[in-house]
Protein backbone atom coordinates (compact mmCIF):
# COMPACT_ATOMS: atom_id res chain seq x y z
CA UNK A 1 0.00 0.00 0.00
CA UNK A 2 1.11 3.56 -0.63
CA UNK A 3 1.54 5.23 2.74
CA UNK A 4 2.18 8.82 3.79
CA UNK A 5 4.51 9.72 6.68
CA UNK A 6 2.81 11.77 9.39
CA UNK A 7 3.33 12.50 13.07
CA UNK A 8 1.57 10.92 16.03
CA UNK A 9 1.36 13.35 18.92
CA UNK A 10 0.74 11.72 22.29
CA UNK A 11 -0.27 13.85 25.26
CA UNK A 12 -0.55 12.24 28.71
CA UNK A 13 -1.88 14.19 31.66
CA UNK A 14 -4.57 14.92 34.22
CA UNK A 15 -8.02 13.79 33.09
CA UNK A 16 -9.40 17.18 34.06
CA UNK A 17 -7.73 18.75 31.05
CA UNK A 18 -9.70 16.64 28.61
CA UNK A 19 -12.05 19.29 27.23
CA UNK A 20 -9.39 21.97 27.17
CA UNK A 21 -6.87 19.86 25.32
CA UNK A 22 -9.45 18.79 22.76
CA UNK A 23 -10.19 22.45 22.10
CA UNK A 24 -6.49 23.14 21.70
CA UNK A 25 -5.78 20.38 19.23
CA UNK A 26 -8.84 21.10 17.15
CA UNK A 27 -7.96 24.77 16.97
CA UNK A 28 -4.45 23.86 15.94
CA UNK A 29 -5.79 21.86 13.02
CA UNK A 30 -6.06 18.23 14.13
CA UNK A 31 -8.82 16.40 12.26
CA UNK A 32 -9.43 13.73 14.88
CA UNK A 33 -8.14 12.29 18.12
CA UNK A 34 -8.37 9.24 20.34
CA UNK A 35 -8.53 9.25 24.12
CA UNK A 36 -7.66 6.42 26.50
CA UNK A 37 -7.95 6.39 30.28
CA UNK A 38 -4.72 5.60 32.05
CA UNK A 39 -2.86 6.08 35.28
CA UNK A 40 0.75 6.87 35.91
CA UNK A 41 3.40 8.63 37.82
CA UNK A 42 6.00 11.22 36.91
CA UNK A 43 8.29 13.79 38.38
CA UNK A 44 5.64 16.14 39.73
CA UNK A 45 2.60 15.09 41.64
CA UNK A 46 0.38 18.11 41.44
CA UNK A 47 -2.99 16.87 40.47
CA UNK A 48 -6.57 16.62 41.62
CA UNK A 49 -6.73 13.30 43.34
CA UNK A 50 -8.09 9.87 43.24
CA UNK A 51 -11.76 10.71 43.69
CA UNK A 52 -11.73 12.75 40.54
CA UNK A 53 -10.49 10.65 37.68
CA UNK A 54 -7.01 9.73 36.69
CA UNK A 55 -4.86 10.49 33.69
CA UNK A 56 -5.85 10.40 30.08
CA UNK A 57 -3.81 9.77 27.00
CA UNK A 58 -4.74 11.82 23.96
CA UNK A 59 -3.34 10.68 20.64
CA UNK A 60 -3.69 12.43 17.33
CA UNK A 61 -2.24 11.82 13.92
CA UNK A 62 -1.31 15.20 12.47
CA UNK A 63 1.08 16.92 10.09
CA UNK A 64 4.52 17.74 11.50
CA UNK A 65 3.61 21.43 11.46
CA UNK A 66 0.50 20.99 13.57
CA UNK A 67 2.44 18.74 15.93
CA UNK A 68 5.12 21.37 16.35
CA UNK A 69 2.59 24.11 16.97
CA UNK A 70 0.87 22.00 19.61
CA UNK A 71 4.13 21.18 21.35
CA UNK A 72 4.74 24.91 21.58
CA UNK A 73 1.36 25.60 23.12
CA UNK A 74 1.71 22.74 25.59
CA UNK A 75 5.14 23.87 26.56
CA UNK A 76 4.08 27.48 27.14
CA UNK A 77 0.72 27.09 28.79
CA UNK A 78 0.39 23.61 30.25
CA UNK A 79 3.74 22.31 31.38
CA UNK A 80 4.24 25.05 34.01
CA UNK A 81 1.10 24.28 36.00
CA UNK A 82 -0.32 20.93 35.00
CA UNK A 83 0.87 17.35 35.16
CA UNK A 84 1.31 16.74 31.43
CA UNK A 85 3.87 15.18 29.13
CA UNK A 86 3.89 14.97 25.33
CA UNK A 87 5.93 13.23 22.67
CA UNK A 88 5.98 12.74 18.92
CA UNK A 89 6.51 9.56 16.96
CA UNK A 90 6.67 8.87 13.23
CA UNK A 91 3.75 6.96 11.69
CA UNK A 92 2.68 5.95 8.19
CA UNK A 93 -0.94 6.20 7.13
CA UNK A 94 -2.89 5.53 4.00
CA UNK A 95 -5.06 8.31 2.57
CA UNK A 96 -3.03 10.99 4.30
CA UNK A 97 -5.43 13.77 3.29
CA UNK A 98 -7.83 12.59 6.01
CA UNK A 99 -5.44 13.97 8.61
CA UNK A 100 -4.30 17.33 7.32
Amino acid at each position, binding site marked *: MHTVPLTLLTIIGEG*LLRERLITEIERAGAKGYTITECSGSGSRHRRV*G*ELLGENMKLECVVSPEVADKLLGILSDEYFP*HFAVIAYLSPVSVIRGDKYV
Partner: protein
Amino acid sequence: MLEVLRINLCSPISLAFVLGLFARIIRSELSLPRELYASLSIYLLLALGLKGGVELSHASMAELAWPAVVTLLLGVITPCTAYLVLRRIGRFSIADSAGIAAHYGSVSAVTFIAAQQFVQTLGFPAEGFMPTLLTLLESPGIHVALGIGAVQTARLASQPRADGSPPVERRPLKEVLHEVLTARSMILLVGGLACGFVMGEKGYEPVKPFFEGMFKGALTLFLLEMGLAAGARLGDLKSTGLFLLAFGMIMPILHGSLGVFLGHWAGLSIGGATVLGAMAASASYIAAPPAVRMTLPEANPTLYLTAALAITFPFNIVLGIPIYFQLARMLAGGS
Protein backbone atom coordinates in the same frame (compact mmCIF):
# COMPACT_ATOMS: atom_id res chain seq x y z
CA MET B 1 -21.62 14.32 75.36
CA LEU B 2 -19.53 11.16 75.78
CA GLU B 3 -22.58 8.99 75.19
CA VAL B 4 -23.39 10.93 72.02
CA LEU B 5 -19.81 10.47 70.91
CA ARG B 6 -19.91 6.75 71.58
CA ILE B 7 -23.12 6.33 69.59
CA ASN B 8 -21.55 8.27 66.74
CA LEU B 9 -18.37 6.23 66.80
CA CYS B 10 -20.20 2.91 66.80
CA SER B 11 -22.43 3.80 63.88
CA PRO B 12 -21.87 1.80 60.68
CA ILE B 13 -20.88 5.03 58.94
CA SER B 14 -18.00 5.89 61.26
CA LEU B 15 -16.87 2.29 61.49
CA ALA B 16 -16.78 1.89 57.71
CA PHE B 17 -14.73 5.07 57.43
CA VAL B 18 -12.29 3.82 60.03
CA LEU B 19 -12.06 0.46 58.28
CA GLY B 20 -11.14 2.23 55.04
CA LEU B 21 -8.51 4.35 56.79
CA PHE B 22 -7.11 1.28 58.50
CA ALA B 23 -6.93 -0.68 55.23
CA ARG B 24 -4.81 2.09 53.68
CA ILE B 25 -2.59 2.36 56.73
CA ILE B 26 -1.71 -1.33 56.65
CA ARG B 27 -1.22 -0.90 52.89
CA SER B 28 -3.94 -3.32 51.86
CA GLU B 29 -4.69 -3.57 48.16
CA LEU B 30 -8.40 -3.06 48.90
CA SER B 31 -10.01 -0.52 46.64
CA LEU B 32 -13.53 0.02 45.42
CA PRO B 33 -13.97 0.08 41.65
CA ARG B 34 -14.07 3.69 40.50
CA GLU B 35 -17.44 2.98 38.89
CA LEU B 36 -18.90 1.71 42.16
CA TYR B 37 -17.80 4.92 43.81
CA ALA B 38 -19.39 6.97 41.04
CA SER B 39 -22.57 4.89 41.11
CA LEU B 40 -22.95 5.17 44.85
CA SER B 41 -22.49 8.91 44.76
CA ILE B 42 -25.09 9.25 42.00
CA TYR B 43 -27.47 7.12 44.00
CA LEU B 44 -26.93 8.99 47.27
CA LEU B 45 -27.35 12.44 45.73
CA LEU B 46 -30.44 11.48 43.78
CA ALA B 47 -31.99 9.73 46.78
CA LEU B 48 -31.23 12.76 48.93
CA GLY B 49 -32.84 15.06 46.41
CA LEU B 50 -35.94 12.91 45.89
CA LYS B 51 -36.59 12.53 49.61
CA GLY B 52 -36.00 16.24 50.14
CA GLY B 53 -38.36 17.09 47.29
CA VAL B 54 -41.13 14.90 48.65
CA GLU B 55 -40.80 16.54 52.04
CA LEU B 56 -40.50 19.99 50.50
CA SER B 57 -43.98 19.52 49.09
CA HIS B 58 -45.24 19.67 52.68
CA ALA B 59 -43.23 22.77 53.67
CA SER B 60 -44.40 26.37 53.50
CA MET B 61 -42.28 29.03 51.85
CA ALA B 62 -42.40 31.06 55.06
CA GLU B 63 -40.58 28.38 57.03
CA LEU B 64 -37.94 28.20 54.36
CA ALA B 65 -37.22 31.91 53.97
CA TRP B 66 -34.96 32.75 56.91
CA PRO B 67 -33.01 29.51 56.82
CA ALA B 68 -32.34 30.18 53.14
CA VAL B 69 -31.11 33.67 53.89
CA VAL B 70 -28.71 32.59 56.60
CA THR B 71 -27.46 29.76 54.39
CA LEU B 72 -26.55 32.20 51.64
CA LEU B 73 -24.94 34.41 54.25
CA LEU B 74 -22.80 31.48 55.34
CA GLY B 75 -21.84 30.97 51.71
CA VAL B 76 -20.41 34.50 51.63
CA ILE B 77 -18.84 34.67 55.09
CA THR B 78 -17.07 31.31 55.32
CA PRO B 79 -14.85 31.64 52.23
CA CYS B 80 -13.80 35.13 53.40
CA THR B 81 -12.88 34.08 56.93
CA ALA B 82 -11.05 31.05 55.56
CA TYR B 83 -9.14 33.20 53.05
CA LEU B 84 -8.13 35.77 55.65
CA VAL B 85 -6.94 33.17 58.14
CA LEU B 86 -4.92 31.33 55.49
CA ARG B 87 -3.36 34.42 53.96
CA ARG B 88 -2.74 36.52 57.05
CA ILE B 89 -2.01 33.92 59.71
CA GLY B 90 -0.98 30.96 57.60
CA ARG B 91 1.05 33.07 55.13
CA PHE B 92 -0.06 30.96 52.21
CA SER B 93 0.22 32.38 48.68
CA ILE B 94 -2.80 34.17 47.22
CA ALA B 95 -3.59 31.24 44.95
CA ASP B 96 -3.28 28.64 47.69
CA SER B 97 -5.32 30.71 50.15
CA ALA B 98 -8.10 31.29 47.63
CA GLY B 99 -8.00 27.66 46.54
CA ILE B 100 -8.36 26.28 50.03
CA ALA B 101 -10.98 28.91 50.93
CA ALA B 102 -13.10 27.80 47.98
CA HIS B 103 -13.27 24.35 49.51
CA TYR B 104 -14.29 25.60 52.96
CA GLY B 105 -16.85 27.97 51.49
CA SER B 106 -18.60 25.11 49.75
CA VAL B 107 -20.08 22.04 51.37
CA SER B 108 -19.53 18.29 51.59
CA ALA B 109 -22.65 16.33 50.78
CA VAL B 110 -21.48 13.28 52.70
CA THR B 111 -20.90 15.33 55.85
CA PHE B 112 -24.41 16.71 55.36
CA ILE B 113 -25.86 13.22 55.08
CA ALA B 114 -23.90 11.95 58.05
CA ALA B 115 -25.18 14.84 60.18
CA GLN B 116 -28.72 14.19 59.03
CA GLN B 117 -28.48 10.50 59.92
CA PHE B 118 -26.89 11.37 63.23
CA VAL B 119 -29.62 13.71 64.47
CA GLN B 120 -32.28 11.34 63.19
CA THR B 121 -30.80 8.44 65.14
CA LEU B 122 -30.84 10.57 68.28
CA GLY B 123 -34.49 11.46 67.74
CA PHE B 124 -34.01 15.05 66.57
CA PRO B 125 -34.74 14.83 62.84
CA ALA B 126 -33.82 17.89 60.80
CA GLU B 127 -36.33 19.81 58.73
CA GLY B 128 -37.39 18.17 55.48
CA PHE B 129 -36.16 21.09 53.40
CA MET B 130 -32.53 20.76 54.45
CA PRO B 131 -31.45 19.38 51.03
CA THR B 132 -32.68 22.67 49.57
CA LEU B 133 -30.27 24.52 51.82
CA LEU B 134 -27.52 22.15 50.77
CA THR B 135 -27.97 23.16 47.14
CA LEU B 136 -27.96 26.82 48.12
CA LEU B 137 -24.67 26.46 49.95
CA GLU B 138 -22.85 24.43 47.34
CA SER B 139 -21.72 27.03 44.86
CA PRO B 140 -21.56 30.59 46.26
CA GLY B 141 -18.53 29.91 48.43
CA ILE B 142 -16.55 28.56 45.48
CA HIS B 143 -17.23 31.68 43.45
CA VAL B 144 -16.53 34.11 46.23
CA ALA B 145 -13.17 32.49 46.88
CA LEU B 146 -12.23 32.20 43.21
CA GLY B 147 -13.31 35.82 42.79
CA ILE B 148 -11.03 36.90 45.59
CA GLY B 149 -8.21 34.93 44.04
CA ALA B 150 -8.82 36.46 40.62
CA VAL B 151 -9.02 40.04 41.87
CA GLN B 152 -5.98 39.67 44.09
CA THR B 153 -3.78 38.22 41.43
CA ALA B 154 -5.30 40.60 38.86
CA ARG B 155 -3.90 38.37 36.22
CA LEU B 156 -7.14 38.02 34.36
CA ALA B 157 -5.73 39.72 31.26
CA SER B 158 -3.93 37.18 29.09
CA GLN B 159 -1.31 37.81 26.45
CA PRO B 160 -1.66 36.63 22.83
CA ARG B 161 0.42 33.64 21.80
CA ALA B 162 3.75 33.68 20.03
CA ASP B 163 2.20 32.41 16.79
CA GLY B 164 -0.45 35.12 16.96
CA SER B 165 -3.39 32.81 17.65
CA PRO B 166 -5.44 33.87 20.65
CA PRO B 167 -4.68 31.83 23.76
CA VAL B 168 -7.23 29.51 25.30
CA GLU B 169 -8.13 32.05 27.94
CA ARG B 170 -7.83 31.60 31.63
CA ARG B 171 -11.22 30.19 32.48
CA PRO B 172 -13.68 33.06 32.80
CA LEU B 173 -15.73 32.93 35.99
CA LYS B 174 -18.87 32.62 33.91
CA GLU B 175 -17.70 29.32 32.52
CA VAL B 176 -16.80 28.10 35.98
CA LEU B 177 -20.24 29.16 37.18
CA HIS B 178 -21.89 27.15 34.41
CA GLU B 179 -19.75 24.21 35.30
CA VAL B 180 -20.57 24.32 39.00
CA LEU B 181 -24.27 24.86 38.37
CA THR B 182 -24.53 22.01 35.89
CA ALA B 183 -22.19 19.74 37.79
CA ARG B 184 -23.30 16.19 38.42
CA SER B 185 -24.00 16.80 42.07
CA MET B 186 -26.10 19.88 41.36
CA ILE B 187 -28.20 18.21 38.69
CA LEU B 188 -28.84 15.18 40.83
CA LEU B 189 -29.67 17.15 43.95
CA VAL B 190 -31.72 19.94 42.40
CA GLY B 191 -33.18 17.61 39.79
CA GLY B 192 -34.02 15.10 42.50
CA LEU B 193 -35.64 17.84 44.57
CA ALA B 194 -37.77 18.90 41.62
CA CYS B 195 -38.75 15.34 40.73
CA GLY B 196 -39.57 14.50 44.34
CA PHE B 197 -41.62 17.69 44.65
CA VAL B 198 -43.63 16.84 41.53
CA MET B 199 -44.20 13.16 42.24
CA GLY B 200 -45.13 13.69 45.88
CA GLU B 201 -45.62 11.02 48.54
CA LYS B 202 -47.79 8.91 46.25
CA GLY B 203 -45.38 8.73 43.34
CA TYR B 204 -42.49 8.19 45.72
CA GLU B 205 -44.04 5.13 47.37
CA PRO B 206 -43.02 2.46 44.82
CA VAL B 207 -39.39 3.60 44.62
CA LYS B 208 -39.05 4.13 48.38
CA PRO B 209 -37.57 0.68 49.14
CA PHE B 210 -34.80 1.44 46.67
CA PHE B 211 -34.09 5.07 47.49
CA GLU B 212 -34.80 5.03 51.20
CA GLY B 213 -34.48 1.42 52.35
CA MET B 214 -31.02 1.01 50.85
CA PHE B 215 -29.79 4.47 51.74
CA LYS B 216 -27.89 3.82 54.94
CA GLY B 217 -26.30 0.64 53.66
CA ALA B 218 -25.12 2.35 50.49
CA LEU B 219 -23.82 5.21 52.60
CA THR B 220 -21.81 2.71 54.66
CA LEU B 221 -20.16 1.34 51.56
CA PHE B 222 -19.48 4.87 50.38
CA LEU B 223 -17.82 5.79 53.64
CA LEU B 224 -15.53 2.81 53.24
CA GLU B 225 -14.29 4.37 50.02
CA MET B 226 -14.00 7.78 51.67
CA GLY B 227 -11.85 6.16 54.33
CA LEU B 228 -9.64 4.65 51.66
CA ALA B 229 -9.33 7.99 49.89
CA ALA B 230 -8.58 9.87 53.10
CA GLY B 231 -6.09 7.20 54.12
CA ALA B 232 -4.23 7.63 50.84
CA ARG B 233 -3.73 11.30 51.72
CA LEU B 234 -2.51 10.73 55.27
CA GLY B 235 1.05 10.59 54.00
CA ASP B 236 0.71 14.12 52.62
CA LEU B 237 0.02 15.48 56.09
CA LYS B 238 3.74 15.64 56.73
CA SER B 239 4.40 17.88 53.77
CA THR B 240 1.42 20.17 54.32
CA GLY B 241 2.52 21.18 57.77
CA LEU B 242 1.11 21.74 61.20
CA PHE B 243 -0.70 24.96 60.41
CA LEU B 244 -2.98 23.25 57.91
CA LEU B 245 -3.66 20.47 60.40
CA ALA B 246 -4.80 22.98 62.99
CA PHE B 247 -6.69 24.99 60.38
CA GLY B 248 -8.55 21.86 59.26
CA MET B 249 -9.91 21.28 62.75
CA ILE B 250 -10.36 24.79 64.20
CA MET B 251 -11.93 26.38 61.13
CA PRO B 252 -14.77 23.83 61.12
CA ILE B 253 -15.48 24.51 64.78
CA LEU B 254 -15.73 28.24 64.10
CA HIS B 255 -17.77 27.87 60.92
CA GLY B 256 -19.86 25.13 62.50
CA SER B 257 -20.68 27.21 65.56
CA LEU B 258 -21.59 30.14 63.34
CA GLY B 259 -23.84 27.84 61.35
CA VAL B 260 -25.56 26.50 64.44
CA PHE B 261 -26.10 30.03 65.82
CA LEU B 262 -27.50 31.36 62.56
CA GLY B 263 -29.62 28.25 62.11
CA HIS B 264 -31.06 28.53 65.59
CA TRP B 265 -31.68 32.24 65.09
CA ALA B 266 -33.47 31.52 61.79
CA GLY B 267 -35.83 29.19 63.57
CA LEU B 268 -34.40 25.77 62.77
CA SER B 269 -34.97 22.86 65.15
CA ILE B 270 -32.10 21.32 67.11
CA GLY B 271 -31.59 18.78 64.33
CA GLY B 272 -31.80 21.42 61.62
CA ALA B 273 -29.34 23.77 63.34
CA THR B 274 -26.92 20.87 63.84
CA VAL B 275 -27.07 19.95 60.17
CA LEU B 276 -26.64 23.58 59.06
CA GLY B 277 -23.63 23.80 61.37
CA ALA B 278 -22.15 20.66 59.86
CA MET B 279 -22.71 22.09 56.38
CA ALA B 280 -20.96 25.35 57.21
CA ALA B 281 -18.14 23.45 58.90
CA SER B 282 -17.59 21.03 56.04
CA ALA B 283 -15.23 21.44 53.12
CA SER B 284 -16.14 20.34 49.60
CA TYR B 285 -14.00 17.68 47.94
CA ILE B 286 -16.20 16.99 44.93
CA ALA B 287 -17.35 20.29 43.44
CA ALA B 288 -14.52 22.57 44.53
CA PRO B 289 -11.34 20.72 43.43
CA PRO B 290 -11.91 20.75 39.66
CA ALA B 291 -13.18 24.32 39.72
CA VAL B 292 -10.08 25.47 41.60
CA ARG B 293 -7.71 23.36 39.52
CA MET B 294 -8.95 24.90 36.29
CA THR B 295 -9.31 28.48 37.46
CA LEU B 296 -6.32 28.78 39.78
CA PRO B 297 -3.85 26.23 38.41
CA GLU B 298 -1.06 27.76 40.50
CA ALA B 299 -2.74 26.60 43.69
CA ASN B 300 -1.22 23.38 44.97
CA PRO B 301 -3.81 20.57 44.89
CA THR B 302 -2.05 18.66 47.65
CA LEU B 303 -2.87 21.42 50.10
CA TYR B 304 -6.57 21.75 49.47
CA LEU B 305 -7.27 18.09 48.95
CA THR B 306 -5.45 17.01 52.07
CA ALA B 307 -7.14 19.66 54.19
CA ALA B 308 -10.63 18.90 52.93
CA LEU B 309 -10.42 15.14 52.70
CA ALA B 310 -7.89 13.94 55.24
CA ILE B 311 -8.38 16.48 58.00
CA THR B 312 -11.72 18.26 58.00
CA PHE B 313 -13.87 15.44 56.68
CA PRO B 314 -12.96 12.85 59.33
CA PHE B 315 -12.86 15.54 62.00
CA ASN B 316 -16.46 16.47 61.26
CA ILE B 317 -17.66 12.89 60.97
CA VAL B 318 -16.15 11.78 64.23
CA LEU B 319 -16.02 14.84 66.48
CA GLY B 320 -17.51 17.85 64.75
CA ILE B 321 -21.07 16.69 64.31
CA PRO B 322 -21.54 15.71 67.97
CA ILE B 323 -20.09 19.09 68.97
CA TYR B 324 -22.48 21.03 66.74
CA PHE B 325 -25.31 18.95 68.12
CA GLN B 326 -24.38 19.75 71.72
CA LEU B 327 -24.20 23.41 70.84
CA ALA B 328 -27.60 23.33 69.15
CA ARG B 329 -29.07 21.57 72.15
CA MET B 330 -27.60 24.15 74.53
CA LEU B 331 -28.97 27.01 72.45
CA ALA B 332 -32.39 25.40 72.44
CA GLY B 333 -32.17 25.22 76.24
CA GLY B 334 -31.62 21.47 76.35
CA SER B 335 -29.06 19.60 78.49
